[in-house]
């Protein structure tokens, strides 16, 4: 627990982070950037879990454990996504999101 910083402030920060992520996911034109936006979302939830655990329910470490697993899964997700992006890059020589629009409607 950090003295002088209340739960609300941290949650406000994570919420902002979350929405930056969502915004980035929607607006970014580069697949890597989109991936990073997703990571932002995940990280905001990680902080959420840790902070809620620490501030509200410090006795049981459920939130902490959850956070570790989110990190692990996020890593797997990223690994896979990057692998697929590379594969796509080999076909199109670009990581631009508009390269993924051969299928529509």
């Amino acid at each position: 627990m950090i003295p002088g910083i209340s739960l609300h402030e941290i949650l406000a920060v994570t919420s902002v982070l979350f929405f930056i992520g969502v915004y980035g996911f929607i607006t970014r034109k580069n697949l890597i950037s989109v991936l990073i936006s997703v990571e932002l979302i995940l990280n905001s939830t990680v902080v959420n879990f840790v902070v809620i655990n620490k501030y509200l329910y410090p006795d049981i470490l459920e939130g902490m454990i959850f956070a570790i697993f989110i990190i692990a899964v996020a890593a797997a997700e990223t690994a896979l996504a990057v692998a697929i992006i590379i594969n796509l890059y080999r076909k199109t020589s670009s990581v631009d999101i508009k390269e993924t629009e051969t299928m529509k409607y």
Partner: protein
Amino acid sequence: MGSEAIIVFFLAGIVLVAGANFLSKLISPKSDNPQKREPYESGMTTIGPTWVQFKVGYYLFAILFLIFDVEVAFLVPWAVVFGKIGTVALLEILIFLAILGLGLAYAWKKGALKWE
């Protein structure tokens, strides 16, 4: 000193770099000519773009690292409490590492560890 030490060191590092940069700017000589601003390529002019496509091997290892590093992250809490838990922890980590090792063996067999 509490956790703010981390912040202090962080700031100190920044100050160090920024300060030295500033100092260097103050005292260093300045001269300019076009050749100086070219990228160094053993005296030749650069050919083609520099930001080129990479061997996929780098990414492969990056991905492998990512996976194994996360596994290490799971080993950390286990290692800390291992002494207190004992048998169950040993069994579980054996399974965990067996699967991990199998993964490594698989990557090995598939040639992911080979640098061509």
